[in-house]
Protein backbone atom coordinates (compact mmCIF):
# COMPACT_ATOMS: atom_id res chain seq x y z
CA UNK A 1 0.00 0.00 0.00
CA UNK A 2 1.56 3.23 -1.14
CA UNK A 3 0.92 6.94 -1.11
CA UNK A 4 0.63 8.85 -4.39
CA UNK A 5 0.55 12.56 -5.03
CA UNK A 6 -2.74 12.31 -6.95
CA UNK A 7 -5.01 10.01 -8.96
CA UNK A 8 -3.07 11.03 -12.06
CA UNK A 9 0.09 9.68 -10.49
CA UNK A 10 -1.68 6.37 -9.78
CA UNK A 11 -2.81 6.23 -13.42
CA UNK A 12 0.80 6.68 -14.53
CA UNK A 13 2.02 3.98 -12.15
CA UNK A 14 -0.65 1.59 -13.45
CA UNK A 15 0.38 2.39 -17.02
CA UNK A 16 3.90 1.56 -15.89
CA UNK A 17 2.88 -1.89 -14.73
CA UNK A 18 1.53 -1.93 -11.16
CA UNK A 19 -1.89 -3.59 -10.77
CA UNK A 20 -4.93 -1.28 -10.61
CA UNK A 21 -6.37 -1.68 -7.14
CA UNK A 22 -8.41 0.54 -4.87
CA UNK A 23 -7.81 4.19 -4.08
CA UNK A 24 -8.91 5.87 -0.90
CA UNK A 25 -8.23 9.00 1.10
CA UNK A 26 -5.48 9.71 3.58
CA UNK A 27 -8.15 10.27 6.20
CA UNK A 28 -9.70 6.86 5.55
CA UNK A 29 -6.30 5.26 5.87
CA UNK A 30 -5.74 7.07 9.16
CA UNK A 31 -9.08 5.82 10.48
CA UNK A 32 -8.20 2.30 9.35
CA UNK A 33 -4.74 2.46 10.94
CA UNK A 34 -6.08 3.67 14.27
CA UNK A 35 -8.70 0.94 14.47
CA UNK A 36 -6.45 -1.80 13.14
CA UNK A 37 -3.51 -1.18 15.44
CA UNK A 38 -5.31 0.07 18.57
CA UNK A 39 -4.86 -3.22 20.42
CA UNK A 40 -1.47 -4.26 19.01
CA UNK A 41 0.34 -3.61 22.29
CA UNK A 42 -2.22 -5.49 24.34
CA UNK A 43 -0.84 -8.64 26.00
CA UNK A 44 -3.99 -10.43 24.92
CA UNK A 45 -3.78 -9.39 21.27
CA UNK A 46 -4.69 -12.07 18.78
CA UNK A 47 -5.10 -12.12 15.06
CA UNK A 48 -8.53 -10.89 14.08
CA UNK A 49 -11.17 -13.13 12.62
CA UNK A 50 -12.23 -12.35 9.09
CA UNK A 51 -15.52 -10.93 10.34
CA UNK A 52 -13.71 -8.67 12.83
CA UNK A 53 -11.39 -7.45 10.09
CA UNK A 54 -14.34 -6.74 7.81
CA UNK A 55 -15.97 -4.70 10.58
CA UNK A 56 -12.87 -2.53 10.82
CA UNK A 57 -12.70 -2.09 7.08
CA UNK A 58 -16.38 -1.12 7.04
CA UNK A 59 -15.82 1.43 9.81
CA UNK A 60 -13.28 3.05 7.50
CA UNK A 61 -15.73 3.04 4.58
CA UNK A 62 -13.99 0.12 2.86
CA UNK A 63 -16.89 -2.15 1.97
CA UNK A 64 -16.31 -3.12 -1.65
CA UNK A 65 -15.50 -6.76 -2.60
CA UNK A 66 -11.83 -5.72 -2.92
CA UNK A 67 -11.73 -5.65 0.90
CA UNK A 68 -13.07 -9.17 1.44
CA UNK A 69 -10.50 -11.39 3.09
CA UNK A 70 -10.31 -15.10 2.44
CA UNK A 71 -9.60 -17.82 5.04
CA UNK A 72 -5.95 -18.66 5.52
Amino acid sequence: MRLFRSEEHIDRAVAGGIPRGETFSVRQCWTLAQHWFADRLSPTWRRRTIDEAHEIFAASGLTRPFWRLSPG
Partner: protein
Amino acid sequence: MTTGASGRFDAILRLRILHGFLDEERPTVASMAEALRVPVEEVAAGFDRLASSRAIVLDPDTRDIRMAAPFAGRPTDFHVTIEGRQYDANCIWDAMGISGMLGGVNAEIETRCGDCDEPLYLTVRDREIIGEPAVVHFAVPAARWWDDIGFT
Protein backbone atom coordinates in the same frame (compact mmCIF):
# COMPACT_ATOMS: atom_id res chain seq x y z
CA MET B 1 -1.39 -18.26 18.18
CA THR B 2 -0.83 -21.40 20.16
CA THR B 3 -2.31 -22.14 23.56
CA GLY B 4 -0.76 -23.24 26.86
CA ALA B 5 2.82 -22.54 27.92
CA SER B 6 4.11 -21.87 24.41
CA GLY B 7 1.15 -19.58 23.80
CA ARG B 8 2.01 -17.53 26.89
CA PHE B 9 5.66 -17.41 25.90
CA ASP B 10 4.77 -16.33 22.38
CA ALA B 11 2.56 -13.53 23.72
CA ILE B 12 5.46 -12.27 25.84
CA LEU B 13 7.88 -12.63 22.94
CA ARG B 14 5.58 -10.80 20.53
CA LEU B 15 5.26 -7.87 22.93
CA ARG B 16 9.01 -7.80 23.57
CA ILE B 17 9.62 -7.67 19.84
CA LEU B 18 7.27 -4.70 19.44
CA HIS B 19 8.81 -2.88 22.39
CA GLY B 20 12.24 -3.57 20.92
CA PHE B 21 11.21 -1.83 17.73
CA LEU B 22 9.75 1.03 19.78
CA ASP B 23 13.19 1.40 21.37
CA GLU B 24 14.65 1.69 17.84
CA GLU B 25 16.17 -1.79 17.96
CA ARG B 26 15.90 -4.47 15.30
CA PRO B 27 15.05 -7.49 17.46
CA THR B 28 16.79 -10.76 16.63
CA VAL B 29 16.62 -14.25 18.08
CA ALA B 30 19.83 -13.50 19.98
CA SER B 31 18.71 -10.14 21.35
CA MET B 32 15.34 -11.53 22.40
CA ALA B 33 16.98 -14.51 24.09
CA GLU B 34 19.16 -12.13 26.05
CA ALA B 35 16.27 -9.81 26.91
CA LEU B 36 14.02 -12.66 28.05
CA ARG B 37 16.86 -14.73 29.54
CA VAL B 38 15.88 -17.89 27.72
CA PRO B 39 17.84 -20.15 25.34
CA VAL B 40 18.10 -19.01 21.73
CA GLU B 41 16.50 -22.27 20.60
CA GLU B 42 13.38 -21.40 22.58
CA VAL B 43 13.20 -17.95 21.00
CA ALA B 44 13.87 -19.35 17.52
CA ALA B 45 10.95 -21.75 17.97
CA GLY B 46 8.84 -18.82 19.19
CA PHE B 47 9.77 -16.80 16.10
CA ASP B 48 8.65 -19.70 13.91
CA ARG B 49 5.32 -20.03 15.74
CA LEU B 50 4.70 -16.27 15.53
CA ALA B 51 5.47 -16.42 11.82
CA SER B 52 3.11 -19.37 11.38
CA SER B 53 0.34 -17.33 13.01
CA ARG B 54 1.29 -14.33 10.85
CA ALA B 55 2.08 -12.16 13.87
CA ILE B 56 5.50 -11.57 12.29
CA VAL B 57 7.12 -12.25 8.93
CA LEU B 58 10.60 -13.76 8.81
CA ASP B 59 13.19 -13.43 6.08
CA PRO B 60 13.20 -16.90 4.48
CA ASP B 61 17.00 -16.99 4.29
CA THR B 62 18.23 -15.32 7.48
CA ARG B 63 15.15 -15.92 9.71
CA ASP B 64 15.49 -12.28 10.80
CA ILE B 65 12.29 -10.31 11.34
CA ARG B 66 11.20 -8.78 8.07
CA MET B 67 7.91 -7.46 9.47
CA ALA B 68 6.39 -7.12 12.91
CA ALA B 69 3.52 -4.92 11.85
CA PRO B 70 3.42 -2.02 11.95
CA PHE B 71 7.23 -2.11 12.07
CA ALA B 72 9.55 -3.14 9.27
CA GLY B 73 12.69 -5.03 10.15
CA ARG B 74 14.70 -3.40 7.40
CA PRO B 75 14.90 0.06 5.81
CA THR B 76 11.86 1.02 3.76
CA ASP B 77 10.38 4.06 2.02
CA PHE B 78 8.02 4.66 4.96
CA HIS B 79 9.76 6.64 7.70
CA VAL B 80 8.02 7.63 10.92
CA THR B 81 9.35 9.97 13.58
CA ILE B 82 7.73 10.07 17.03
CA GLU B 83 9.25 12.02 19.90
CA GLY B 84 12.62 12.02 18.17
CA ARG B 85 12.61 8.28 17.57
CA GLN B 86 12.72 7.00 14.02
CA TYR B 87 11.03 3.91 12.67
CA ASP B 88 10.58 2.12 9.37
CA ALA B 89 7.09 0.86 8.48
CA ASN B 90 6.02 -1.68 5.88
CA CYS B 91 3.54 0.52 4.00
CA ILE B 92 1.60 3.74 4.43
CA TRP B 93 -1.08 1.93 6.48
CA ASP B 94 1.58 0.66 8.88
CA ALA B 95 3.32 4.04 8.94
CA MET B 96 0.10 5.56 10.29
CA GLY B 97 -0.36 2.47 12.43
CA ILE B 98 2.72 3.17 14.52
CA SER B 99 1.04 6.34 15.79
CA GLY B 100 -2.32 4.55 15.94
CA MET B 101 -0.84 1.79 18.06
CA LEU B 102 0.34 4.43 20.53
CA GLY B 103 -3.06 6.09 20.81
CA GLY B 104 -2.70 8.53 17.94
CA VAL B 105 0.38 10.33 19.25
CA ASN B 106 1.93 13.11 17.24
CA ALA B 107 4.05 11.77 14.41
CA GLU B 108 5.85 12.80 11.25
CA ILE B 109 5.54 10.46 8.27
CA GLU B 110 7.82 10.70 5.27
CA THR B 111 7.40 8.55 2.20
CA ARG B 112 7.70 8.84 -1.58
CA CYS B 113 5.09 9.01 -4.30
CA GLY B 114 4.69 5.53 -5.79
CA ASP B 115 4.85 7.09 -9.25
CA CYS B 116 7.28 10.01 -9.36
CA ASP B 117 9.30 9.10 -6.26
CA GLU B 118 9.08 12.66 -4.92
CA PRO B 119 8.89 12.94 -1.11
CA LEU B 120 5.47 13.17 0.50
CA TYR B 121 4.97 14.25 4.10
CA LEU B 122 2.09 13.65 6.49
CA THR B 123 1.76 14.76 10.09
CA VAL B 124 -0.34 13.47 12.96
CA ARG B 125 -1.29 16.27 15.34
CA ASP B 126 -3.87 16.01 18.09
CA ARG B 127 -5.05 12.71 16.60
CA GLU B 128 -5.75 14.26 13.22
CA ILE B 129 -3.76 13.62 10.08
CA ILE B 130 -2.72 16.56 7.96
CA GLY B 131 -0.36 17.12 5.09
CA GLU B 132 -0.06 17.85 1.41
CA PRO B 133 -2.69 16.44 -0.96
CA ALA B 134 -2.18 12.73 -1.58
CA VAL B 135 -4.16 9.53 -2.10
CA VAL B 136 -3.62 5.98 -0.91
CA HIS B 137 -3.57 3.07 -3.34
CA PHE B 138 -3.86 -0.61 -2.50
CA ALA B 139 -2.74 -2.63 -5.52
CA VAL B 140 -3.78 -6.11 -4.36
CA PRO B 141 -7.23 -7.26 -3.18
CA ALA B 142 -7.41 -8.21 0.50
CA ALA B 143 -8.00 -11.88 -0.30
CA ARG B 144 -4.56 -12.04 -1.95
CA TRP B 145 -2.45 -9.98 0.49
CA TRP B 146 -0.71 -13.04 1.85
CA ASP B 147 0.25 -14.28 -1.61
CA ASP B 148 3.10 -11.77 -1.20
CA ILE B 149 2.70 -9.69 1.95
CA GLY B 150 5.67 -7.58 0.84
CA PHE B 151 3.63 -6.22 -2.05
CA THR B 152 0.09 -5.04 -1.35
